């Protein structure tokens, strides 16, 4: 927990960085902006990181296992720390029986390696490996996960343990904290269940933090008066989660890895699938506490972890909040006296479900069409775009834009989220959310709902550059 010394992989990466001469790096970095595939990079020696995708039996609680797919036989996968602007190589080995692909979520990478077959990244065949060379940017808390299709198989895609943290260290880290913790929220043992909206949807038996149910596994250990930086990821395939740390507040400093204009203290965090929150907690309440899901039935399903101050013991304490609280706009830039309206091109996008039977999952449409029949919209490089996300459904949708960050320009109710940069936003049901981005990273760019069942059922589209 304490700010740790470099891991073996990091030491290896550092050594690698020192061993490879600058000319080799420059050739890689300049020859292809961020990618160089196997042949060239293998000549440089071992990769900085290796990810083995393989079947794994995860012990969720004592003597209760789930057979899944994981990275390097652990859930979450290994923490990958990269230096902003310093070329890194990652080798991915697929030891499963089906094609796989790894998406580097939140990074600005070329389409060829971003990790989406819809953008043109090649799938990794069973038994084969691929090496990526990438120039990490932007700095902050990112993650990596499978981007494969699951459909009705709730043991594939993001329903599995294929997720891990990726942190791009900024050139200058101004953070003031004593320790750093990475936590992943995930749901397991999914099955399709009839829902109130008349279609089938995934429901789960078990929910975990870092692959363990509450009370199983090592507690988080902290010391009084420490400032602990929590990096929390919701890697759930479909579920939104609220988490609180009893007796404490979170000072939110970054959303989706990007520093927020107005850090604020909040009693709980809400994370939609794929969202991340970085928040500092001042440890001033020596005791044993629960950090867990606020909703009782989800915490009862296991989503929580014990936090233990040094020298404290006993049963962990949970103080049940009375309501769910979260508001993106708390962290936005204060409104300017006279807002400056840039030249922005608006793109309206309407999300609607399409009924396919009470015994099936709904299909999803963007502007009336399901992927792969959705329109591919052409972007002009350098132009700023406003996506008007009109959610005409009773579901909230975590909307993700690949290879770019966007600004929350207007949230439901006309509230401003200016200054908040994200790569995933939860678009509220029956509401309109506006996001803006500058087309500054040419290449095919995928846009989709990050709920696995929704993207599998057509909730995707592509942008291309002119």
């Amino acid at each position: 927990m304490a700010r740790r010394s470099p891991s073996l992989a990091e030491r290896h990466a550092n050594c690698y960085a020192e061993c490879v001469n600058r000319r080799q790096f420059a050739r890689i970095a300049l020859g292809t902006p961020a990618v160089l595939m196997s042949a060239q990079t293998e000549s440089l020696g071992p990769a900085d990181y290796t990810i083995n995708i393989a079947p794994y039996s995860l012990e969720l609680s004592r003597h209760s296992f789930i057979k899944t797919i994981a990275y390097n036989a652990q859930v979450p996968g290994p923490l990958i720390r990269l230096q902003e602007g310093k070329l890194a190589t990652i080798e991915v080995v697929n030891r499963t029986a089906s094609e796989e692909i790894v998406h580097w979520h939140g990074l600005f990478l070329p389409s060829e390696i971003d990790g989406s077959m819809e953008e043109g990244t090649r799938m990794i065949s069973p038994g084969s490996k691929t090496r990526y060379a990438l120039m990490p940017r932007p700095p902050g808390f990112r993650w990596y996960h499978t981007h494969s299709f699951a459909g009705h198989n709730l043991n594939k895609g993001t329903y599995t343990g294929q997720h891990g943290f990726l942190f791009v260290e900024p050139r200058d880290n101004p953070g003031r904290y004593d320790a750093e913790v990475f936590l992943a929220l995930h749901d397991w043992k999914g099955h399709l269940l009839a829902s109130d909206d008349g279609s089938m949807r995934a429901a789960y038996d078990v929910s975990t933090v870092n692959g363990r149910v509450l009370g199983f596994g090592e507690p988080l250990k902290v010391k009084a008066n420490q400032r602990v930086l929590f990096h929390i990821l919701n890697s759930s395939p479909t579920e939104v989660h609220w988490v609180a740390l009893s007796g404490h507040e979170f000072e939110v400093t970054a959303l989706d890895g990007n520093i927020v204009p107005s850090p604020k203290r909040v009693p709980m965090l809400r994370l939609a699938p794929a969202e991340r929150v970085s928040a500092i907690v001042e440890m001033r309440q020596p005791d044993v506490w629960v950090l867990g899901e606020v909703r009782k039935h989800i915490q009862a399903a296991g989503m929580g972890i014990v936090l233990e101050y040094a020298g404290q013991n006993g049963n962990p304490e949970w103080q049940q909040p009375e309501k769910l609280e979260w508001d993106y706009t708390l962290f936005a830039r204060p409104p300017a006296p006279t807002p400056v309206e840039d030249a922005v091109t608006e793109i309206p996008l309407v999300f609607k479900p399409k009924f396919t039977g009470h015994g099936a999952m709904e299909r999803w449409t963007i502007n009336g069409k399901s992927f792969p029949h959705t329109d591919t919209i052409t972007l002009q490089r350098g132009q700023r775009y406003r996506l008007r996300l009109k959610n005409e459904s009773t579901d909230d949708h975590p909307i993700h834009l690949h290879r770019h960050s966007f600004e929350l320009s207007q949230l439901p109710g006309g509230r401003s989220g200016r200054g908040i940069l994200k790569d995933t936003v939860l678009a509220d049901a029956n509401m309109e959310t506006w996001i803006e981005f500058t087309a500054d990273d040419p290449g095919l760019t995928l846009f989709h709902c990050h709920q696995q069942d929704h993207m599998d059922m057509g909730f995707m589209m592509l942008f291309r550059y002119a």
Partner: protein
Amino acid sequence: MFSVLFASLFCTLPLAAQGNYEIQVYGSDTVAPGTTMLELHSNFTISGQKYQINGVYPTYHQEHESVEITQGINDWSEVGFYIFTSEQNGHGMQWVGDHIRPRVRVPTSWHWPIGVSISTEIGYQRPIYSLDTWTWEIRPILDKAIARWYFAVNPALERTWHGPDVHQKLGFAPDAKVSYDFTKEISSGVEYYADYGGLYAFDSFHDQQQQFFVAFDLNVSPNWEINFGIGVGATAATDHLIFKAILGRRFSWRKSTAID
């Protein structure tokens, strides 16, 4: 909820008896804990038995109104209670009888590929409406929704404890349903209700009850249940033409909040 509670003929009795108080093929879902389901079953025999036989009123132009109250116990069991009434020219509104029906299901956490539950129903009906006054039924329920199709089978077994059919021992009275979702709100299909007589010695086809309904389900809200249809009897022992309707409403007594 995608599913509508489907239904069955609880009391298909031999030639001289009546039935058609609750015409429903059951689905495997049970009522949620802390929730009460209130249903009104309205069935009108357009064409049926016109003569009084062995003191039992004829079914012709009888209007049956049955109230069903079902309480969810937990996420795998419920108990239902019925009040049966009949209205007919010359007889007025009459109480017919009451039944109680506990039911358990395979919990969803077992992840079975089909829905499975089993109900048992015990009850009394007045002899002027059925010579078999005390009856018991055990009803296995299997169902499955596949895309727009829904399938349900209820191979029910019946036992008469008091009345002329005591000697029959177990009777076999299967029901089934196949329906198709035309839209999210409207489903329609065929419901089948039968009483073959004794399990080990079926009645002749002439004496069996065989009914087919064209039925509609309106899925307007998870809280409401609306089903109606028209059915024909295929044998002499079956009422020939019946209209049926079910109107149900769920009432939740649990004060659940966003944090529950």
